[in-house]
């Protein structure tokens, strides 16, 4: 199935949780913030949410800026 990940249509495995996806991408959950269908997700809840077709997921982190 496809989700919208950081603005791009992205195929992910059916039944995958947000936590699974983050680990699959090699990201440290402590360094990112996640928004799922416009709702901010607490780190503790990342493994509780199973992604569904056409979900919107934003994974963000701090970068250098002024």
């Amino acid at each position, binding site marked *: 199935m496809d989700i919208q990940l*950081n*603005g791009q249509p992205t195929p992910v495995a059916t039944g995958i949780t947000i936590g699974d996806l983050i680990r699959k*991408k090699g*990201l*440290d959950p402590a*360094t*990112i*913030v996640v*928004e799922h269908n416009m709702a*901010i997700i*607490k780190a503790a809840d990342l493994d509780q949410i199973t992604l569904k077709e056409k979900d919107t997921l*934003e*994974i*963000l*982190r*701090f*970068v*250098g*800026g*002024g």
Partner: protein
Amino acid sequence: MNSIHSMDSLTIGGHAFDSRLLIGTGKYPADDMIPTIIAASGSRIITVALRRVDFEATTDNVMQHIPDDMQLLPNTSGARNAQEAVRIARLARATGCGNWVKIEVIPDSKYLLPDGHETVRATEILVKEGFVVLPYINADPIVARQLEAAGAAAVMPLAAPIGTNRGLTTREMLQIIIDEIKVPVVVDAGLGKPSQACEAMEMGADACLVNTAIASAADPVAMAGAFAAAIRAGRDAWCAGPGAIRTSAAASSPLTGFLYEQE
């Protein structure tokens, strides 16, 4: 007075800081020079931006270069209206980095000028949500006053467009803001040289935020130190109270006892 830190502290959002130089984390030749820049600048407050993770790039995590005792000031760069700024601010707070936010609402990509109306709207919302809000604004005294009324912890008027290194092009309006606004005034954007930051402080600004001028210098660490010294000098001069400006000369030496005969 010769230490890296000012003697009188800067208070924003109920916190006192012993440096009046705020720095950014953008555009350095390498992010791993950030700790050295922080040390050279003496800065206690540092900005960062929030962006989508690029899954293709092996990007460095900028946070690993920022000591825990720094006050983090996430900006809302990328926001084009109040709603987007509020969304970014909430996401930034959700990282656990604290409740400070620099509001940037920029609908214009050529001059990167901020939208005052949308900035006020975002500030009103975020103050109610418990954020310590530092809005980036054009040097507009009316917008500054509206932000103060909305509960902004400071106002951050620009000296010149972001990244231009052009100095105090908004001097007249900055002076009005400094004279009229009671919350701290942090001159942000466009300062290119330490002398310009020094002048802003001599005018009575409470602090300056410098990113590009340090990051784009041939030696960013040395430039960070130079800005720190200039800001300290300017603050000390303002505290000392500059003497009056006159149109005619006023001799510094006695006008009596000259070595010639009085006519």
